């Protein structure tokens, strides 16, 4: 009867397999850090709020915003995993256009306000215009 042969040395994973494993580990670390950050932020926020006599409505607002941030983060993650490269590229262009619009608007408005030409920069207006520019850039790149 033949005895059991010594098992061969474990196969060295291919470069592709190692890269996939590396990406899995990297994604896992990022996700765990995000969850940990959210939990720590939630606890710190709750403790701080409790010490300052926060009302029920304020606590609900804090929880609502936290849920919104988590939902938006998860939604973005799934969205960017599902879309094709044309849409991804359109999103990159939208981000680039948006950040440039924000930079120009904020710096320009702040400088004019500092010079006394205009009133102080309005964050809501800058946010709205930035979103409009980003959406326009996205729609142009996606459907041109």
């Amino acid at each position, binding site marked *: 009867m033949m005895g059991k042969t010594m098992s061969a040395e474990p196969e060295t994973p291919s470069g592709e397999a190692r890269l996939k494993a590396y990406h899995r580990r990297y994604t896992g670390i990022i996700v765990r850090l995000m969850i940990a950050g959210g939990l720590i932020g939630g606890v710190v926020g709750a403790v701080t709020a409790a010490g300052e006599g926060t009302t029920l409505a304020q606590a609900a607002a804090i929880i609502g915003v936290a849920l919104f941030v988590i939902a938006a983060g998860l939604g973005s993650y799934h969205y960017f995993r599902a879309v*094709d*490269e*044309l*849409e991804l*590229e359109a999103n990159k262009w939208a981000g680039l256009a948006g950040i440039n619009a924000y930079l120009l608007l904020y710096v320009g408005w702040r400088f004019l306000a500092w010079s006394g030409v205009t009133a102080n920069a309005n964050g809501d207006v800058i946010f709205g215009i930035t979103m409009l520019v980003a959406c326009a850039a996205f729609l142009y790149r*996606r*459907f*041109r």
Partner: protein
Amino acid sequence: MQRAFAKDIMKNRLKVLRAERDWSQAELAGRLDVSRQAVNAIETGKYDPSLPLAFRIGRLFNMAIEEIFDDGENNVG
């Protein structure tokens, strides 16, 4: 250095190859796992596909990438 804003989009034979097989843009998009708009953007020269997508296109039509896409450099000589 290659400029990011350069308008040197490659020419390609995707529309011809698709027509030879009597595929719609949507059908080709389904085979390539991209949106119909992506196929349209590539065909009309508004978008250059990524290298992985170019390889998928080549495999689908059983052709080399340079037989489908032309960057205008191949015939110089």
